[in-house]
């Protein structure tokens, strides 16, 4: 009987059972996945982005498949923070895992209002600031494209939050490290990356964009090498923990992010393909560690060597 690898991760501000979180926007409010897995087996999950009020989202078509990927333009349709706190959060509290709330806003005041409201609710491990959704303003515009607005918003949210704040970064920038540093200087507890890549698909028969929103965000295995590169760059450029994501489908994919410098990972589009993908990935990480004599998965973080 060989001893099992220790999969726990200590982010400093938050201890996780294992490095696998389910990514916001791909996991509903969590409960959708209860028929397929014990949610307590996950390191945690990040619920779908919440604005203060319910939000209608974009008209369909909202999805189009891409080679090894998916372009979405949902537009953050959601129930709003009050309905979430009343109807969903009480049921999430019963689950023994880290519940992270993805926080949205159409301006800085709304982010602050959402966090101030959630501060009065129990059962939340951390906030993930969604400053990087490409589908809510024209041309993919969002706070995470610019260092100063990122700094300003993170600072305001930190000033009203007693809980840890994770800032979710956009890959649609020239220098993602610059944005990560702006968030770090403003006091973010961690950064998560990457959100989706601004993308487009055209129907050559109708000559119209395939998405009603024209642009959408590309996710899935297609973006994984781009995401690994950015996680590597950011992990080398900031001191706060990095949560890596982008097309993780298997335990090996998750380990690639950890070795490249991520302290934990988020599994996104894979949840659509296999509703139990995130727990399978936890198992595969454990199996790999056991097979490779790795006693603690956290020892793998950032162990990438020079080429």
């Amino acid at each position, binding site marked *: 009987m060989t001893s099992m690898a220790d999969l726990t991760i200590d982010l400093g501000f938050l201890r996780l059972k294992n490095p696998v979180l389910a990514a916001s926007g791909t996991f509903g409010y969590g409960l959708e*996945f209860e028929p*397929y897995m014990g949610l307590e087996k996950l390191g945690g999950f990040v619920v779908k982005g919440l604005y203060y009020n319910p939000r209608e989202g974009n008209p369909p*078509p909202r*999805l189009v498949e891409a080679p090894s990927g*998916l372009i979405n333009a949902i537009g953050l349709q959601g129930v709003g923070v009050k309905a979430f706190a009343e109807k969903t959060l009480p049921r999430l509290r019963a689950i023994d895992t880290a519940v992270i709330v993805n926080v949205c806003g159409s301006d800085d005041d709304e982010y602050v209002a959402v966090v101030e409201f959630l501060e009065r609710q129990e059962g939340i491990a951390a906030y993930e600031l969604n400053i990087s959704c490409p589908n809510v303003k024209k041309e993919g515009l969002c706070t995470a494209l610019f260092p100063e607005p990122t700094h300003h918003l993170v600072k305001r949210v930190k000033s009203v939050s007693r809980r840890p704040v994770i800032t979710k970064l956009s890959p649609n920038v020239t220098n993602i490290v610059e944005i990560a540093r702006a968030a770090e200087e403003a006091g973010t507890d961690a950064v998560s990356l990457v959100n989706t890549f601004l993308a487009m698909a055209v129907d050559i028969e109708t000559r119209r964009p395939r998405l009603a929103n024209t642009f959408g965000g590309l996710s899935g295995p297609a973006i994984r090498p781009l995401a690994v590169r950015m996680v590597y760059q950011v992990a080398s450029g900031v001191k706060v923990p990095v949560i890596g994501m982008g097309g993780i489908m298997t335990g090996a994919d998750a380990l690639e992010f950890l070795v490249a410098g991520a302290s934990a990972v988020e599994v996104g589009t894979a949840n659509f393909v296999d509703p*139990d993908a995130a727990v399978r990935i936890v198992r595969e990480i454990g199996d790999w560690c056991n097979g490779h004599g790795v006693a603690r998965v956290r020892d793998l973080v950032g162990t990438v060597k020079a080429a």
Partner: protein
Amino acid sequence: MTIDRNARIQDVKSWGDYYLLTIDSPAVGRTAQPGQFVMVKVADTPFPLLRRPLSIHDARESGIELFFKVAGLGTEILARKKAGDAIDILGPLGKGYTVSPDLKGKKAHLVGGGRGIAPLFFLGRALQILGARVTVFYGGRCQADVPLRHRFEAAAFPLLCSTDDGSFGFAGLVTELLGRELGVSPADMLYVCGPDPMMSAVARMARESGIPGEFSLESMMGCGIGACWGCVRRVRNESGDGWVKICEEGPVFPGDRIVWTE
């Protein structure tokens, strides 16, 4: 709702671009209701990435049948499967047609257009079992678009076919055929699945003649389980109308709840 990763294809039938797969899957077959769907994984590779939503054509203790038309890469790959191949299906999913005992002895018209005929066989069987008087209206562009006509006839369903080009059955739209029949004698319930222009036309007829109807909507789906919010359609609820996930609240809706755009 189960993920059956080792469902087994028993039989494949095809008529041009149309395919009928018989799949061994007791876990899905035993719990399926008419109008529900499954998400089928077509490849083990990341391309194509997403599962394909297909409505359940028939269900028995031993498994299910899926009827589809090749419409793109996913269904093309699915069409190449052979008897004996394993297939990964997630389901049964969604809310199907209402099969109410109140319909005993009543007239139910089932209206299908093209591949939209898919869920109506299972529904027709369920309605027959409870004693409803079922008539099936089956429309397509041409004779090749109504390949299941023999199957419905073999199951003793009164069947009325239409083709746009007149190559088989009534020459014209299935909605015209339905209109004629309703003109002669009204029905108690309409069950519909097909392209949107056809369904919105039937919805209009249902409203005008005061017959309740249920309609199965179609959409690209990311997950089929309510997590991605990608498959929305405009649907009315208590607080007005909004974008509703058809995988979760549907795919079947009463006609008066759907906001038709066609």
